[in-house]
């Protein structure tokens, strides 16, 4: 299965992945309208300290502890893509406690959100990958 992999040595810490992610999942056609004057809600996070930076999002584990810990049965695997049914989420944070990558975070709407590889929005391909200027994150089969 194609996954997002991080090439840390090429990450520039530009944070564009976060913005493209937030835009892709906003459901709004216009990026400006989607993001202007808003606290962005990205499902990918850039860790940055000094000269080191890299992006982190869901690894879509083959043994997903988030699914096993979710009290609401809201997180499931769809052909290997770990997705969350936000209508079932009760924001208990069990998945936050479970995820070894720290890849789940609350969304604005009082439910959790996570990277679903842009399979549930209109992107087709992960928006973060498309927005990365330096191939610091790639979407491929390994």
């Amino acid at each position, binding site marked *: 299965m194609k996954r997002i992999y991080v090439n840390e040595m090429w990450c520039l810490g*530009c944070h564009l992945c976060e913005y493209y992610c937030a835009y892709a999942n906003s459901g709004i056609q216009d990026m400006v309208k989607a993001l202007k004057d808003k606290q962005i809600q990205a499902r990918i996070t850039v860790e940055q300290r000094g000269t080191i930076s890299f992006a982190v999002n869901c690894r879509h584990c083959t043994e997903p502890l988030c699914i096993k810990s979710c009290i609401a049965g809201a997180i499931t695997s769809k052909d290997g893509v770990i997705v969350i049914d936000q209508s079932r989420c009760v924001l208990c944070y069990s998945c936050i406690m479970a995820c070894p990558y720290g890849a789940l975070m609350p969304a604005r709407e009082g439910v959790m959100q996570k990277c679903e590889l842009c399979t549930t929005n209109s992107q087709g391909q992960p928006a973060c990958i498309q927005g990365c200027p330096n191939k610091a994150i790639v979407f491929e089969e390994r």
Partner: protein
Amino acid sequence: MGINYLYPPFEIIRNQDRCIACRVCERQCANLVHHYDEDKKRMTADESLCVNCHRCVSLCPTRALKIVKTDHTFKENANWKTEVIEDIYRQAQSGGVLLASMGTPKEYPVYWDKMLINASQVTNPSIDPLREPMETRTYLGKKSAKITRDGEGRIITSTTGQLKLDIPIMFSAMSYGSISYNAHKSLAMAASELGTFYNTGEGGLHKDFYQYGKNTIVQVASGRFGVHPEYLNAGAAIEIKMGQGAKPGIGGHLPGSKIGEDISATRMIPLHADAISPAPHHDIYSIEDLRQLVYALKEATRYTKPVIVKVAAVHNISAIASGIARSGADIIAIDGFRGGTGAAPARIRDNVGIPIELALASVDQRLRQEGIRGNVSLVVGGSIRSSSDVIKAIALGADAVYIATSALVALGCHLCRTCHSGKCNWGIATQNPELVKRLNPEVGSQHLVNLLTAWNHEIKEMMGGMGINSIEALKGNRLMLRGIALHETELKILGIAHAGQ
């Protein structure tokens, strides 16, 4: 501090309606132009620091930025133009030589744009390169004047000591030091994939790049930086650099600040010591001296590698080329005065040397007249900008071309001409690790491969249009060119007729 006479040349126009304050402009500008104003909750910029490299413009996800030329003016004066006045201010303040980078921006004639290419109509058929073979492969090196046959009458072909190019385009010399590790790697990877060559420049060959040896031309220049037997044998050819189009007659200077550990090891010079290339080779004062170096290098590589002699296009270039063709060199590379550089004195860059088109035409002509054209291949560089420039150069007599500025542009260079600052935001002309990493060679080499693949397609199309199916048949075929808006002397030097004739 005194009075600052210089007004910033650019204005940064930010469309605040579109700016989402993602701060990518701020994070990506090594010149510290942009910053976020916490009080106003919006981005602002100090345009006096801007070099107009477009890094921010290119990365802005909402296209909220553009950079425009300031409309601040001096009182109009055709003689005392703005840049003339400003240069005087600069020198009056600094007392120093004005430094500049890349090729000259001055408005000299570009003869490529004053020549037109022929096409077949009715009386001779054009060729469809998608249906019929079209050869863009070419070999560089000495060509035998006589055909020799073996006992059974078969032609003896010898291509030893030849460079085989799948496309008639090579990447010209840019040293590791003047450009970054990643830029160098991009060029090496692309040359390797394209079946052509890149050139180390005077910076030696980083140990990581020996693997690209068969697509590498190693250079020996006046500073002899990084030259050792292993280096000479690592590449496919050796280039003696006598001169460079952007700065004929002078040497080079890589400041000690750029001589980090890797570069110091590669150039074989002390850490943080200035790398100064002398203006002349101190062992070359005549063609005979040059011949000694050519053969010294051939000895060092057991006569397996062709030797290139690179010179800048200057006034009596054809006589110089004639001498080189007799020196034992296999290839002459001529660099026109519009060629680029990482740093050169502005006055020299903008005023010394001659255009490559005229130099090429006169050299080809002269070597033919003297019957020694086959002694050498001719490679020309100095602002080859497109596939049609390549076609025109070959038709004027070149065997192949060198490109560098075009290659850098493909890597992201926006020709802001501040390479000498060392703060290249595109990770090309810098040694700052944080900037160098901005150029991922995987991306860079792909862009180079794409560019030359595209050019090769266009070359094939244009050759087919002329009814020509190989580079060899186009070479020196000046009938395929016509001048436009050129006067007689120019046409005579170029050896072409005027359009309509």
